[in-house]
């Protein structure tokens, strides 16, 4: 039987969201069970798909999709319901399933009196982000990309502190501004695809990659030269703005700190965990493939902005006093690394970016949960009002220690793998980027230790003497994340193995190189045993 597994990944959350409306609001236990059940089912499906993918042959074409589902949608304009999964989207989908499951588990039934509303929105968001990752058709992608904002808007504007309304509005305006430019760019791509005789244009990604628009001279209106960019470059800017805002890259980041500050941890685990990664995903999946020339043209600027994000985020994290904002700016700095890896346009860098996307999802979720647990117990987020918590919270101290080390890129932890490969890619682009990113690593050590030691060390403040350590349930929530940080640090191979073939493909398209480079470089095999 041919089960549409990819569709199920989208349909199960939507179906459960509808089903939940039949459950009375007061049945919170049942609501939570259904929410966890649906997200867990999706997670099982996704991991089964990934497990199978390792052995399965990839389809041909520019995308090498391992699984595809395709149905006509609006045949008149060549838009289709086309879902596909490759090594890149596979890992992101896994992260997606993981963080939503975590979000479902993290919300306690006492945390909100509107659990059904929360569950519904969480499931709808998961469906939308899953759709973004699975789409292999630009119109479909855009539909999910924009659709994602609707449940997110209600989530962010209904759960959180008193500033949430203003912060959510800022986020939505930012994002919509970016997305509209992207829509215009998509339509431009559709109309300018270089068609052979008898072909009609299509929104299909593979089709558009294979039919790039003929390169055109810089856009000039008679008499007034408005720009020295080619139309392709302008169109790329349309996409890039949408993605750069979502990541976010400095200077498009100001929606993030406030919004993270006002949102509760159980929203942040998936909002910070996956939504911000979709921008990075967009750059890899669409930026590298549809715009090889423009991205090569702009990579110096983009990489410089990425480095700016790293350093600037780090400096902000170093001077902030609110522990949640510290984590938020640390997140901007880490996302800068991911962006830097992508814009290096090297196989090492892009692989590192994907590894780091996974890692960052894990680390940032753990950090926001930890910060939330501390805030819930002490009633404050001011760094200077907190100290010496290790004495009262030895278990949280240990879990937080591992998360801190992962956050500062400690070798042996997962983030080192990503940052090392990213910086190697950046070094291949130009050594100065790697050296500046290295400065970011040193600053990361500084601000993470300032946060960790500031909370955990020094004599404990008298008002904190009665703080209690985390409960078993909270420890169980954090432990898998912490275990993954260590596991992916000593055995990162699965991520690279699965993602690398796709990455090789994307990078070769972006750089116009042969997808399978001849082994001119000597292979780095096993060490030579003299015996």
């Amino acid at each position, binding site marked *: 039987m041919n089960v549409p597994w990819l569709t199920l990944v989208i349909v199960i959350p939507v179906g459960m969201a509808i089903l939940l409306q039949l459950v009375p609001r007061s049945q919170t236990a049942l609501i939570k069970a259904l929410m966890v059940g649906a997200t867990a089912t999706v997670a099982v499906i996704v991991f089964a798909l990934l497990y199978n993918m390792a052995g399965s042959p990839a389809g041909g074409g520019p995308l090498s999709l391992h699984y595809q589902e395709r149905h006509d949608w609006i045949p008149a304009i060549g838009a289709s319901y086309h879902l596909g999964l490759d090594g890149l989207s596979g890992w992101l989908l896994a992260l997606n399933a993981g963080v939503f499951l975590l979000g479902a588990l993290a919300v306690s039934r006492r945390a909100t009196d509107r659990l059904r509303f929360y569950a519904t929105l969480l499931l709808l968001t998961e469906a939308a982000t899953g759709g973004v990752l699975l789409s292999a058709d630009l119109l479909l992608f855009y539909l999910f990309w924009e659709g994602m904002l609707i449940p997110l808007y209600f989530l962010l504007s209904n759960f959180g502190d008193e500033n949430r309304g203003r912060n959510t509005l800022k986020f939505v305006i930012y994002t919509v501004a970016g997305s509209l430019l992207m829509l215009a760019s998509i339509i431009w791509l559709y109309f300018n695809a270089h068609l052979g005789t008898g072909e009609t244009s299509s929104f299909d990604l593979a089709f558009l990659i294979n039919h790039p628009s003929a390169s055109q001279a810089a856009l000039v209106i008679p008499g007034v030269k408005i720009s020295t960019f080619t139309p392709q470059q302008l169109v790329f800017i349309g996409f890039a703005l949408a993605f750069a805002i979502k990541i976010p890259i400095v200077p498009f980041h100001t929606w993030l700190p406030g919004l993270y500050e006002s949102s509760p941890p159980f929203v942040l685990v998936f909002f910070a965990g996956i939504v911000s990664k979709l921008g990075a995903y967009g750059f890899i999946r669409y930026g590298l493939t549809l715009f090889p020339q423009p991205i090569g043209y702009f990579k110096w600027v983009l990489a410089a902005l990425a480095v700016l994000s790293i350093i600037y985020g780090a400096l*902000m994290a170093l001077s902030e006093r609110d522990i949640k904002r510290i984590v938020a700016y640390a997140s901007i700095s880490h996302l800068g690394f991911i962006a830097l890896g992508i814009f290096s346009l090297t196989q090492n860098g892009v*692989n590192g970016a994907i590894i780091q996307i996974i890692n960052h999802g894990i680390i940032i979720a753990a950090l926001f949960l930890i910060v939330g647990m501390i805030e819930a117990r002490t009633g404050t987020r001011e760094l200077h009002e907190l100290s010496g918590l290790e004495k009262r919270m030895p278990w949280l101290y240990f879990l937080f220690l591992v998360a801190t080390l992962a956050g500062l890129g400690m070798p042996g932890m997962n983030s080192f*793998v990503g940052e090392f490969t990213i910086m190697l890619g950046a070094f291949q682009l130009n050594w100065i980027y790697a050296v500046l990113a290295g400065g970011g690593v040193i600053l990361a050590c500084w601000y993470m230790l300032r946060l960790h030691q500031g909370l955990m060390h020094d004599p404990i403040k008298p008002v904190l003497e009665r703080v209690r350590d985390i409960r078993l349930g909270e420890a169980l929530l954090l432990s898998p994340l912490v275990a993954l940080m260590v596991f992916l640090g000593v055995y990162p*191979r699965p991520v690279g193995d699965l993602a690398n073939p796709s990455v090789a493909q994307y990078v070769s398209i972006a750089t116009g190189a042969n997808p399978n480079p001849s082994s001119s470089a*000597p292979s780095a095999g096993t060490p030579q045993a003299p*015996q």
Partner: protein
Amino acid sequence: MSVDTASALVILILLFPLAGAALNAVLGPRLGRGFVNLAGTLSIGAAFVVACVILGNVIAAPAGHSAVSVRLWQWLNLGSGNLSIGMDFTLDPLSALMVMVITGVGFLIHVYSVGYMEHDPGVARFFAYMNFFIFSMLTLVLAADLIILIVGWALVALSSYLLIGFWYERASAVLAARKAFITQVIGDVALVIAAFLIFLNAHTLSLPNIFARTAAFPSGGILVNGICALLAIGAFAKSAQFPLHTWLPDAMEGPTPVSALIHAATMVTAGVYLIARFHPLFNLAPIAGGMVACVGMGTALMAGIIALSQIDIKRVIAYSTMSQIGLMIYAVGIGAYSAGMFHFATHAVFKALLFMAAGNVIHSLHDEQDIRLMGGMAARMRWTHWAFLSGSLALAGIPLWAGWFSKENLLGFGTVAGPGPAPWLLYMVGVGVNVLTGLYAFRLWATVFHGEPQTARVYAAKEARNVLLVPVVILGVLSLIVAWPLQWPVPNAVRVFSDFLSPVFAGTPAGLASEPALWIAIVALVIGTLASLLGVGAAQRMWLHREPDPAAVAARLPRALPLLSYNKFYFDELYDAAFVRPVRAAARTARRVVEPDVFDGWIAGLTDLLRGFSVDLRAYQTGFIRDYAAAFTVGAVVLVVVTAVFLSR
């Protein structure tokens, strides 16, 4: 030794300390002190047994087959031409030497810790960290892939951080831990960038493969010199060498066994190991090697001067450690790799001893560390005193004590090898360091153990208990005899040690660190020994007999000298002004100005513009029919006129 044996040995020696750490961390707090002491020490004892087996296997290996590499698993593989890294480890004479010292000295220090930490409530955490340190250090010295080496390198820094800040309720300890860790990360970044350069040229990060492809690095070129300089920066951070040395004295905030194990015997010597391990590259990089030699000797001199005036017993020993490691770094910088490693081995013994003996003194004085408040301890702590004396003699390099063999051996190479046209210059500085070493070592000994007791606490002091004494006495005896069968500082005498390591350093070209001729070696030996004796003798006169009084001597020196020494050449203040404050200021500016006014500003400006526009527009929504009718009329007329004009053209 077969690959299977080798993998079994590698897994075992890594597993024992790791298991000890895990047991102590998870079960320790519940099962109590007895369990913690057992798990903590036995795990290292077991690792020591494995280390002995490794040593036996390496010695027994047939000539030319003394190195075995094993791969435990593939770590990452990004396709050919890109990163491919294995969890690789290697057993060879160099790593065998390192694991012997780490587990051997480490075991004694763990036993000592049982007594030292007896009353500390955090003993389970302490042993978990200590065991984890041994695991990290073993990972570092066994690694056969640069990435794995960097992992061990950083984990060592982590354990050091955790142990410096062990008493986390002391603000000074917390700051010292942070400072140490950040300094280490600076070194890590340098190592990582060196790894990039190596990878992009040799297309591998596996150490045996790198060393097999030295053709990728043109000899004496800017590339290999740059790589070696970066590696050296990593080594300087770890080994507390100028300019990354300021963390080590502050690291004395940790419990004394930590200072003995990590900040004297093992971790801080990792930089020496790194350079010795990368000798195939350093052999090609004379400029970087010369820089390393100069930095090493310069640090040795500087730390020796500082040690003369410090008043905290542990800080004096810390600066002496910095100085002695400077000598090792100097040795590996001039290509005398096995001489550097030999000084590492003997130094581990006598410096661990000095720290633990100092720990006994501190313990019996109820945590007093100011040497001005001690004096006359010899009568109250006989065994500790004799052991400390043995360690000081070894440190000062008095003939027949271990330090004499290794230090004179090392300086002997300095007579013929060294950077630049005048290698003798650095050698002469080394002789000066010998004098300084005798001075500060015996200043400490005389001030702490002799003279009048300075406080009432001293009168009440008692000899340490056996658990604290036995490891100290064992090391005290070893400080005398350990070098006898191994290596003599005269060519063609006993040279078991350098023969053992010679397969590792076989490729070193003859021009680097060839042994001096017999007569030069003997003259150098006499000069060096006389210098050491001079230092010790002068210290005796000044601090034991007060003729001349040291204060009077200091008064006769240029005023700047004692000031610089006491204030550690003002490096802390300098770095604070040059790095810490500017970064803090930049961060503050980012938060107060850049974020609200620039990055949020341009968005706010845009929205204000739009809002202003809409406010202006709103003014026309008057609600009066007549206004709308007027606007409608005007609009219609304009439209008609424009259309008419347009059509008529």
